[in-house]
């Protein structure tokens, strides 16, 4: 009978095809979807916070003060541990790293699947605190308050962070081994796409940093339940020890959230400028510098935490030095745009006007905070909130969205609507600036972070209201982004293999790529950004500058 032959090639079930998959691309997409769900949860908490701050007085939208404290704790923890870190390292890393270096999959595909499910489990544990009692300790969970904070909240939080940390270490090992061992013939380190460079360095940061965090929060748990006194001053412990351990992980962690973003920017700009990236080596090696120096600046979060002030000076110096590699990258990207042929697609807008434009503000804000006498005033105020949101939202988030639109045709096989995409961009851009720029002023005038009540004088309320309305616009932009993706999935034009004319390997295969990526092993003969015409053929009207 004719049906016999087709019986054994029947379509695999959804569970087998997706949930148990070992295909790095599917795992990457699953990470992305779950991360975006968390992004919406964390965003909802942010909108509650901003709504509360529309008025200076008592809690009025949340029923009580503790609930406000739980909101910013959940917001911070979700955004960092459940959105930004896994989105940049695991979602993008999984999808892109193997295919960009010409590998068929990750080095340890099964471990990859395990890491994903650990991530889901960790997220689930985190969210179970909605039921068991949310923690109210801030994402930093400083003792002694975190030790005496009542209820199960902190215990669940610690458990969640542990599971997520394990997942993150497994993911990092996978990326490191993959990049070292599975590169296609001809893919030397000097031909590695810059996103892969940044992922590799990020993976090393995760590997070395995460254990410090694990140590800090485990001892916290011991103090709570097993009668130890690591952080109990009355028994000879020291609360500052926790802060040292915590920031030894968490400052490098901010680079975990920004290096891959810089990698994405470095991928997108040369393609749409049709120029080789300016200073490939400088960009790659400055990431190494950041990865290394990132471990030497942690105490700039602790200038006023109880150390003698002068102890901060070496950390002021390292904080200044680490600003240099970031500046190098900005100038290199600008130089790549110079005499390019710049095509304004949605991803290009996100990484140029968005990332370069706003990360610059965040980085310059960091210089104020890195300078001890100025930080004494600014520390733990809304100025800091403005600074790191310019870096994380104006920077990393812009790159995430740029990358999402850039690789969407590859992942789904469908083009998105440029009109909708650009609308999303402008909503994000305006909303983000409205939300975070006034916060510099709010902090300088004397509003500490993590408060539901503030001084109504000095235009403080007006500035807070501008920030709140800005955040609603960002919320609308987030919804608009989902609409754009859904519209693209349902009615987008079929995507060709290489819609942007890019040169990295993922664009040499069909959209979406087949399982195992390459039918034939690719052989790499050139660096990834060989665009452009030689000077003679190039016909500028007038040369600019030099």
């Amino acid at each position, binding site marked *: 009978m004719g049906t016999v032959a087709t019986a054994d090639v029947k379509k695999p079930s959804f569970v087998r095809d997706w949930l148990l998959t070992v295909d790095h691309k599917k795992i990457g997409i699953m990470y992305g979807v779950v991360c975006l769900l968390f992004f919406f949860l964390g965003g909802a908490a942010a909108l509650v916070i901003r709504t509360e701050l529309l008025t200076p007085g008592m809690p009025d939208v949340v029923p009580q*003060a503790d609930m406000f404290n739980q909101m910013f704790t959940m917001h911070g923890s979700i955004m960092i541990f459940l959105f930004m870190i896994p989105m940049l390292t695991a979602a993008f890393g999984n999808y892109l790293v193997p295919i960009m270096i010409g590998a068929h999959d990750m080095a340890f595909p099964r471990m990859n699947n395990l890491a994903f499910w650990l991530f889901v489990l960790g997220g689930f544990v985190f969210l179970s605190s909605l039921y068991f009692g949310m923690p109210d300790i801030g994402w930093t969970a400083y003792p002694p308050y975190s030790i005496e904070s009542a209820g199960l909240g902190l215990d669940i939080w610690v458990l969640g962070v542990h599971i997520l940390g394990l997942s993150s270490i497994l993911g990092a090992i996978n990326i490191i081994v993959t990049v070292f061992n599975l590169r296609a013939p001809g893919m030397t380190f000097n031909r590695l796409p810059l996103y892969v460079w940044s992922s590799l360095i990020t993976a090393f940061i995760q590997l070395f940093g995460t254990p410090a965090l694990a140590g800090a929060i485990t001892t916290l748990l011991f103090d709570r339940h097993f009668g130890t006194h690591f952080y109990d001053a009355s028994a000879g412990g020291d609360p500052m020890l926790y802060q040292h351990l915590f920031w030894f992980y968490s400052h490098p962690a901010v680079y975990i959230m920004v290096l891959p973003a810089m990698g994405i920017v470095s991928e997108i700009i040369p393609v749409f400028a049709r120029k*080789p990236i300016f*200073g490939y080596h400088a960009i790659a090696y400055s990431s190494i510098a950041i990865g290394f120096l990132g471990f030497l600046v942690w105490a700039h979060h602790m200038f006023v935490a109880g150390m003698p002030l002068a102890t901060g000076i070496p950390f002021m110096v390292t904080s200044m030095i680490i600003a240099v590699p970031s500046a190098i990258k900005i*100038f290199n990207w600008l130089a790549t745009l*110079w005499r390019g*042929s710049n095509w304004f697609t949605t991803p290009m807008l996100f990484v140029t006007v968005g990332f370069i434009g706003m990360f610059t503000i965040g980085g*310059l804000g960091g210089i104020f905070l890195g300078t001890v*006498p100025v930080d*004494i005033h600014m520390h733990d105020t809304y100025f800091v909130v403005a600074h790191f949101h310019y870096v994380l939202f104006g920077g990393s988030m812009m790159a995430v969205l740029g990358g999402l639109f850039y690789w969407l045709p590859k992942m789904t096989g469908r083009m998105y609507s440029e009109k909708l995409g650009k609308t999303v961009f402008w909503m994000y851009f305006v909303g983000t600036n409205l939300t975070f720029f006034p916060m510099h002023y709010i902090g300088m005038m004397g509003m500490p972070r993590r408060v539901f009540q503030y001084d109504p004088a000095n235009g403080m309320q007006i500035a807070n209201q501008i920030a709140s309305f800005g955040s609603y616009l960002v919320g609308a932009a987030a919804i608009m982004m989902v609409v754009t993706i859904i519209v693209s999935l349902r009615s987008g034009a079929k995507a060709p293999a290489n819609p942007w004319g890019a040169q990295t390997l993922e664009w040499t295969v069909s959209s979406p790529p087949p399982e195992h990526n390459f039918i034939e092993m690719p052989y790499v003969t050139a660096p990834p950004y060989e665009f*452009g015409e030689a000077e003679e053929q190039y016909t500028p009207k007038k040369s600019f500058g030099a």
Partner: protein
Amino acid sequence: MDFSWLFPPAINDMAKQVDSLFWFIASIAVFIFVLVEMLLFIFLVRYRRKRPDKQGIALHGNTKMEIIWTLIPALILVAIGVFGSQMTYAIQTPPKDVYTINVTGYKWRWDFDYPEGFKTTNKLVIPEDKSVLFKITSGDIVHSFWIPSMRLKQDAVPGRQTQFWTGPSEKGEYPIVCAEYCGTMHSMMLAKLNVVSTEEFDKFVQSGGKAGGSAADGAGGEGQTLAEQKGCLSCHATDQNKLVGPGWGGMFGKDVKLSDGSTVKYDEKYIIESIIDPAAKTPEGYSPMPPQQVTEEEAKAIAEYIKTLK
């Protein structure tokens, strides 16, 4: 030159110096910001793609340029670091004979111990013409002692003593804020700094810390001042909002349900008893308030104040 717009008033020399360091960095930052945004804008617009297949120029790099734009930011940052370090030492080192006040943070109030042996809560009075050294610690968890008008802040850490000092300051009343998140009522851990003339300060010391407050006028005025200074208002709202403790507004004369199921009239007697012996009668839904350092006399004044609240 007054550098203080964008900041609360700067009330002493150190604050003014910090402001000028801020503006020094700000002018560099604005310059770099304008430079980057201008180049970005110009390059994007001037070199936008005109034909779909148009290529850019095949330019891979330029070592000389790259060295220049690495060195210039590095030198600028070194300059900032040098100024920053000098000022850091100045802020750290107090002069020889300073007037020392011990500061202790608690959930959620500030206690100030004066060398003459008395104590105030949430009310810090200092003379305008003296250098003052604050020795800061905490009685429970980490807080952060911040006087925005002095641009000074130090964490209050249990088991540790931190400090900052300030030179002569301008007269006036200024806020003191807790900048380290410390739980439920962190937002309301506020105190007042009162910089007064020398004579006024002497009076304040002679009265053992009673004078020199900003006594409110009208009925219950004394009670209001006490409620502010004793830290009551960091847990009790003056309206009907529920904070850590029940709100005071509109309660007087009503019946209160207690945690043991009985009811009691919310009158002067009940209020005073609740302050002096908090564990005796706890309203339903609350845990007993920690013991407060309030005399019966003072409790009476506070009850007068609660009477006036709607």
